């Protein structure tokens, strides 16, 4: 047995922490009060007493008309916002009738092919009153789905300043985290990401056009430091680009939000959340000279770590998720999604979804942990770890910049290699038993009792979507469509914002897949260098 201990990201851990471990840090300067720079203790002075973290659970399945029923059900039961997830073909920009979509239509999310589908999805839903979190991972599909949402508002006579919602819109998701048969080059995806943010900054005052997705990067295979550093590097790249386009930093910085993955290393995860606020504040204040304090607020959503869940003895996952959820509260998350215990291997069953909801409610009202702000502040260990995490995050951001910035790091395959190496090391550590997982390689379950895996299938969704597409293609005005598509192509070739072109294509009833096809043809296809 070795007597060296490390956090998951590799920070050495001592047996005991004492005042001298944080002796060098000035409280007001380095930590500060909640709601005060550098926001280590939270972006709001009263935190959860002011507003509890939002309980967010995902919704999205089948055809838009099926999902519409669910949205209305949620709203009738007191929800103020809806979180829409899309099926894989929609996420990756294929119509339901394309060969690539076979077998995936309406599974794990709702299928959206056209403006009409978007209108069906939100039929009888007051979009000027509810906040729609539209979980569009990729910039290339964000610009299309966002355009559909806006054109829908236009058609209903709702002005853009009434619309509120969130996109993910992260080019790292498009080019690094997920693989696919057809991927846009990083530069193009990054441009579309910035186009959406720029457009929202100018036209949609209540919209959050980006949520830098550390979560999926972490799940793909990085440690806590890399998770935060890459997201912040993306925020830096975005800010530089938008400033180059002539926007003042205070016009867009407060729209940036973040999305963290909380894994099992309890104190490191808490330190990560606290440190991420500190580094973001530094970047916005010192580097971009933000004047508005809100520009320096890092707000983030937390989801508990899917990657820590096991298919063996799935009920153990309830314990894992609860502890991760507790860490999110100590970290000062703005909103929280607790994974269902079966989320690692299936769409949540009703029972599993209920337990995850109940876990959040237990944390909120039974444990009293939300009653005081940042209760771990002042712990020698937590403060030390926070400073150390901040230092390592800064170093990693510097490393990315040294390599030419985040877009260049993606283009060269460096970031993919970082992920691949980490995942490979982790797998080796698990196989060797160095990294222990209860029930899997540590005190292995006697009768490897795996949970029953249920997969929801909607056999007729694909057919319904195909029929609607056929009808739409026959009905729409061919001339208007052709003109809109030519203008879209031209827009791709120039440096102007793509959004107005996409909106025009959407008005002309171009489908999601047709618009994406233009992107693929104009920007070219790319595959990341792996080996």
């Amino acid at each position, binding site marked *: 047995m070795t007597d060296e201990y490390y956090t998951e990201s590799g920070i050495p851990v001592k047996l005991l922490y004492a005042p001298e471990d944080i002796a060098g840090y000035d409280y007001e300067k380095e930590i500060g009060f909640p709601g005060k720079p550098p926001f280590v203790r939270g972006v709001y002075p009263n935190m959860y007493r002011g507003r509890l973290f939002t309980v967010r659970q995902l919704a999205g399945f089948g055809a838009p008309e099926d999902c519409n029923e669910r949205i209305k059900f949620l709203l009738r039961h007191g929800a103020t916002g809806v979180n829409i997830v899309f099926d894989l073909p929609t996420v990756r920009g294929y119509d339901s009738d394309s060969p690539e979509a076979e077998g995936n239509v309406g599974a794990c999310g709702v299928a959206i092919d056209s403006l009409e589908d978007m209108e069906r999805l939100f039929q009888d839903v007051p979009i000027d009153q509810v906040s729609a979190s539209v979980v569009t991972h990729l910039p290339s599909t964000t610009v299309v789905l966002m355009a559909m949402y806006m054109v829908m508002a236009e058609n209903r006579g709702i002005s853009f300043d009434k619309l509120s919602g969130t996109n993910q819109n992260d080019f790292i998701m498009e080019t690094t985290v997920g693989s696919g*048969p057809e991927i846009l*080059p990083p530069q193009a995806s990054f441009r579309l990401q910035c186009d959406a943010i720029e457009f929202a900054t100018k036209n949609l005052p209540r919209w959050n056009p980006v949520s830098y997705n550390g979560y999926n990067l972490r799940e793909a295979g990085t440690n806590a430091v890399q998770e935060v550093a890459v997201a912040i590097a993306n925020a830096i790249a975005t800010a530089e680009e938008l400033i180059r386009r002539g926007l003042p930093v205070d016009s867009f910085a407060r729209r940036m939000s973040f999305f963290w993955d909380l894994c099992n290393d309890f104190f490191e995860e808490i330190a990560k959340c606290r440190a991420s606020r500190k580094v973001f504040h530094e970047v916005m204040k010192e580097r971009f000279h933000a004047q508005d304090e809100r520009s320096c607020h890092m707000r983030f959503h937390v989801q508990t770590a899917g990657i820590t869940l096991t298919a063996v003895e799935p009920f153990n996952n309830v314990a894992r998720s609860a502890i991760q959820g507790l860490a999110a509260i100590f970290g000062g998350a703005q909103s929280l999604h607790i994974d269902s215990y079966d989320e690692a291997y299936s769409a949540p069953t009703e029972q599993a979804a209920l337990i995850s909801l109940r876990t959040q409610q237990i944390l909120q009202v039974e444990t009293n942990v939300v009653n005081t702000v940042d209760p771990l502040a002042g712990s020698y260990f937590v403060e030390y770890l926070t400073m150390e995490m901040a230092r390592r995050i800064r170093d990693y951001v510097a490393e990315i910049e040294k390599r030419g910035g985040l877009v260049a790091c993606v283009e*060269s*395959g460096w970031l993919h290699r970082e992920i691949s190496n980490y995942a490979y090391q982790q797998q080796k550590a698990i196989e060797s038993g160095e990294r222990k997982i209860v029930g899997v390689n540590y005190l292995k379950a006697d009768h490897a009792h795996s949970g029953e895996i249920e997969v929801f299938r909607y056999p007729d969704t694909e057919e319904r979507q195909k029929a609607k597409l056929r009808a739409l293609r026959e009905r729409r005005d061919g001339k208007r469509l052709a003109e809109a598509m030519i203008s879209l192509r031209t827009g791709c070739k120039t440096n102007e914002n793509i959004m107005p072109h996409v909106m025009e294509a959407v008005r002309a009833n171009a489908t999601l897949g047709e618009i994406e096809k233009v992107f693929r043809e104009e*920007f*070219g*296809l*790319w*595959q990341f*260098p*792996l*080996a």
Partner: protein
Amino acid sequence: MSWTELLPALRAGDPLALSRLISRVENQGSEKVQIMKTVFAWTGKAYIVGLTGPPGAGKSTITNGLVELLAEKGLKVGVVCVDPSSPFSGGAFLGDRIRMTSLDAKPGVFIRSLASRGSLGGLSAAAKDVVQLLDAAGKDVVLIETVGMGQVGDEIKKLADTTVLVTVPGLGDGIQTFKAGIMEIADIFIVNKAEREGADETVRDLEMMLSEVEPKKWRPRVLKTCALRKEGLEELWESLQEHRRLLEQSGQWMAQRRNRANTILLENSKEHVLEKFQRELEKDELLLGMRRRVDEGSLDPYTAALFISEYFLANRT
């Protein structure tokens, strides 16, 4: 199925027969020489192009675009992608094909990934045999793609009719290192990702360095491409054909084929001798005795090696 049964199918253009023959040759099976000597008569027609350059320059993407273009022109194309084997396990992770997936369905196109399998230069020992097989299978053009470092340049040059070196803007010192030998071997230089800043500068740098190289009949071309958008590939093909015409007119085309046959002759002789030597050596009493003495420290390994080789050669004659 025996190799003799696979040959007619190879000539008829059956990809599975070609593929299985390649495996047998790549794995140095007992039929290797039999196969190669039979197909030799069918070789010599394919135009062989070597594509090399630093990692990340876009070789695979260029290959993909070029092959697509050639396939559209109705040409039959073979592609050999070489990646290094792991020196530790002997296994390999071959990842070039991921960028060539649009070619999978193109008729007449055949792509094979090869691991270098311990070859020092980085080019697979089997690469030249695989090229011969693709040639024998009736491919009009065979492309060999490999990371160009160290000795690979020379190996490619020996194998290919035309050698293409791919680079990208902003490699900076990268171009400087080309000076060391590689400027001489490339017939065509490509500055890929030409939409990027510094592309024209890179082209200028290359032109400048080329002007310092001793002038030959063929003045190497410097081309710009943006392979992702499939720009500049038609021009690349024109330059390749131009070079090919020059080779044919100057007699180089035939000379290259004679050289290749000579290389095969020399290398295979070496291989056969080595193989035989090794086989005998392993069971040789003399070697065991020498080993014992080296182990004991009563003899140094250099003297022992000299002794063994001289003994072996003496017994051959």
